[in-house]
């Protein structure tokens, strides 16, 4: 009914808006960023080719080591935290038998994900305040000395983690909960007839069948954590000094405050390469532990 040539024309016509916007705002920028990384460019004067200078600067950048280390610290704090807390909450809610309570918990746990990050981060910043913040007040009631939530180089990580858990745990929670609900009930019934304990059911049925979801949550939270910007920008502004400055904050500073677009592109590309490597490793290793259902 439809000839091959006509299909090609119609197919590409349907794809045209997507190809145009993709090309203009994702494809071209990637190539452009590659070119920019070999130039010096401040938006006002024309770009100047400078060979490998940006890459040399990249290797000799004194701040970069600390900044990548900070980003890594956020990664190893936030990823396991969200993965485990989200899973525990989902396992808990899936045990609740009353639908009303299920709905109640699901609503409360997911709601913070939807609210404007900037708004609630500003509110949390006041809650973290050393002198008049809610947190230190509550600690005081328990006889605990006030904590420098925003001014101590190590406590800022705890502060961002507390905020991040509060704001985003609903994401992994909801994915896990839906994953658990999609596990066929017949498996549990069969296990119960065979006399499996709830512990066995968790480790022999729930978790193995949940591995595709766990894998998905792992990939997305890792990629999110490595690009973390809003939380440190709004709560600590990278401080004190560079103590919580992440690679995204640094790229923002280089490109849009110092207007060194060339070097900023070099640093941004290093982030792209790292994300690429992590994603490839994760997918390669996933064969070993992720079980997809055979339909």
């Amino acid at each position, binding site marked *: 009914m439809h000839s091959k040539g006509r*299909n090609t024309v*119609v*197919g*590409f016509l*349907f*794809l045209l*808006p*997507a*190809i145009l*916007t*993709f090309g203009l*705002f*994702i*494809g*071209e*920028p*990637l190539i452009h*960023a590659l070119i920019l990384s070999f130039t010096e*460019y401040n*938006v006002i004067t024309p770009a100047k080719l400078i060979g490998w200078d940006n890459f040399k600067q990249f290797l000799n950048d004194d701040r970069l080591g600390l900044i990548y280390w900070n980003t890594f610290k956020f990664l190893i704090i936030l990823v396991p935290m969200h993965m485990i807390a989200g899973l*525990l*909450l989902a396992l808990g809610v899936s*045990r*609740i*038998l009353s639908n009303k309570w299920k709905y109640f918990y699901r609503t*409360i*746990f997911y*709601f913070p*994900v*939807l*609210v*404007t*990050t*900037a*708004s609630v981060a*500003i*509110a949390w910043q*006041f*809650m973290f305040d050393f002198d008049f913040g*809610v947190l230190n007040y509550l600690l005081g009631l328990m006889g605990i000395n006030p904590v420098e939530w925003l001014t101590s180089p190590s406590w800022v990580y705890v502060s961002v983690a507390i905020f991040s858990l*509060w704001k985003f745990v609903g994401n992994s929670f*909801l*994915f896990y909960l*839906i994953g658990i609900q*999609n596990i066929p*009930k017949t498996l549990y*019934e069969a296990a*119960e007839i065979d006399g499996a304990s709830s512990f066995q059911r968790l480790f022999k049925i729930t978790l193995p069948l949940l591995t*595709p979801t766990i894998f998905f949550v792992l990939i997305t939270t890792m*990629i999110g954590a490595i*690009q973390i*910007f*809003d939380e440190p920008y*709004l709560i600590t502004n990278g401080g004190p000094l560079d103590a919580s400055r992440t*690679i995204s904050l640094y790229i*923002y500073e280089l*490109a*849009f405050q110092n207007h060194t677009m060339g070097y900023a592109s070099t640093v941004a590309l290093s*982030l792209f390469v790292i994300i690429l490597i992590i994603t490839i490793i994760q997918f390669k290793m996933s064969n070993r532990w992720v079980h997809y*259902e055979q339909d």
Partner: protein
Amino acid sequence: MSKIGDFEIKNSTSKPVVSPGSFNSRMKKINLVTHGGLMLFALYLALPFMWIISTSLRLPKDSFSLPPTFWPTDFIVGNYLDVFLQVPFTAFILNSIKIAAIVVLGHIIISSMAAYAFSRIDFPGRNVVFIIFLAGLMIPGQVTIIPQFILLSKLNLVDTHASLILPALINPIGIFLIRQMMLTIPKTFDEAAFIDGANRFWVYYRVILPMAMPAIVVTSVMHFIATWNDFFRPLIFLNTYEKMTLPIGMTVLKGVFGTGNLSAILAGVTISLIPPLLIYILGQKYLVEGITMGGLKQ
């Protein structure tokens, strides 16, 4: 968790009849522990909201003073007026709504058309384009934002809403999600329409698009929230107060009231909670369905 357990628990909680048996009492205990843990966590999530709302209703001079309250003791609505009178807060909200609405509409048109081609038209090069789109997901925004800024400043679009709208129109996730849904619609629907003399576009618009509605709704809700919450792009692209969106406007609000009136800031925060709440109430059912359907299976 099984049907049997379900029945027994319902029985034992709804009727005070004591049914002896270690299984039942053990399940009850587990349920209590689970409820306790979940409730504690719910408290951690809820208390900041309650603090925000009750503090937003305090007198400005008391706004920083301790002890904090988690239940409104005062009802000073003046803070809410200050938010609108001293900062162009109405403009922030309207800008956010306008941008999110245009972005979502454009995104849905572009994504659903592409998804239709990817799922229902067979032509050479289709899979290559699809793989390129998916690969685009791995490119972080920090890489593309710099050339985007250069491009948009050459077009004189910096500090306009177009600079936020245009790049947000494309997101391969939306194409992927809608394509997954369209793949489940039997081809017989298309064929029946073709026999009736319909063309491709009519089939897309009148047959396939309505059937893919759950995926469209979930993509819309997710993209709306992402656009509504976006902080990074408006921070870079907008300078004029009147053009700002709500997230970036919040930092303006903080700048204006930060040292004197915490209550006004928190009144602004409270107002900003309302649109996501409405979206959540409207879209929750679809959101859950959509994630289920989004294909976490391979």
